């Protein structure tokens, strides 16, 4: 099954080219030109990974990351940045980012991280399902 990706960047031409390359590699890509647009999509759709630019107008990638995690704590978020600093990287990880990659990103490297994100998300979903089943079994006394 293909990976379902949400790609968020305020650079329209970057979104167009990157999403086409990811689609060529069999991924199912949705794009958003702002963090606000991405948040609306996250509320209504499920994604294996969200790739979001760190610096965007109105709401930056870190603020968006916090909101994504509030909506769904299992979401796997990879941040892309034009000027990575150690401080920003630490801040992103503390907020629950899966990874922070520097632009221009190598697509093979990014694809690997996306596959890891999908695997991590599947483990989390399975864990939650198992917990739910255990809870039902114990409450019913079977």
């Amino acid at each position, binding site marked *: 099954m293909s990976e379902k990706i949400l790609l968020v960047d305020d*650079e329209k031409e970057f979104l167009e*080219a990157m999403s*086409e*390359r990811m689609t060529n590699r069999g991924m199912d890509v949705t794009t958003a030109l702002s963090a606000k647009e991405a948040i609306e999509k996250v509320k209504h759709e499920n994604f294996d990974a969200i790739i979001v630019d760190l610096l965007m*107008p109105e709401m930056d990638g870190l603020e968006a990351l916090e909101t994504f995690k509030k909506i769904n704590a299992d979401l796997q978020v990879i941040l892309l940045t034009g*000027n990575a600093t150690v401080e920003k990287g630490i801040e992103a990880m503390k907020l629950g980012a899966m990874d922070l990659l*520097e632009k221009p*990103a190598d697509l093979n490297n990014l694809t690997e991280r996306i596959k890891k994100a999908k695997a991590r998300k599947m483990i989390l979903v399975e864990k939650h399902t198992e917990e739910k089943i255990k809870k039902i079994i114990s409450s019913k006394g079977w």
Partner: protein
Amino acid sequence: MKMETEAPTDIGLRYFGKMTAAISHELKNSLAIINENAGLMEDLSLMAKRGQQLDPQRVEDLSGRVIKQVQRADTIVKKMNRLAHSVDDPIKEIDVADLLAFTMELGKKSVSSLGVDLQMTPPESPVRINANPFLVMNLFWEVMGYACTRVNGAPCITISIVRNAGGVELVFAPVSDAGHDGFSFDQAPFSGLASCLKAEILALADRKALVLTLPETV
């Protein structure tokens, strides 16, 4: 709360660092687009090798995108060059509207991240002063930053340039503290910079405006 005054050299270095970081970020964005479009060309070439037909128009569109980004990057580098050379002359004749427009352009991304739009109303005829271009840009930026965090919900700040008897006035409006009609103003953080340029900053609470006055010659 009283804020501490920063020495002009410290405040200047901070400004220079912030602007070069913004420039490098913009350059990286341009490089990322070039990188993805080169990657797309590589994808198309691989597909063509496997027998898929290659549309020449598609290749032309992709190379057009690369050329556009190269031109964008060239403009960014020119801006960086102008910023770097702004420290060359201690005193130089400055076209105030031109230098303000350049300062706004350099800081556009940082300002837009605050959700505020900056607009300039230029004077009827060019207003020129003699001062240090870098320090003037730095002061414009500090006052802009101060004003942008006191918009009280207004989406845009207009900066009007008006010639006065002894030099020039830049009026930033509307500026007001959240929940108030007026605002309290403490110019301490950039008072050292203002005094280097013999500049005055006045808070006109009734007009919801901040007025920066610069003399014709420092």
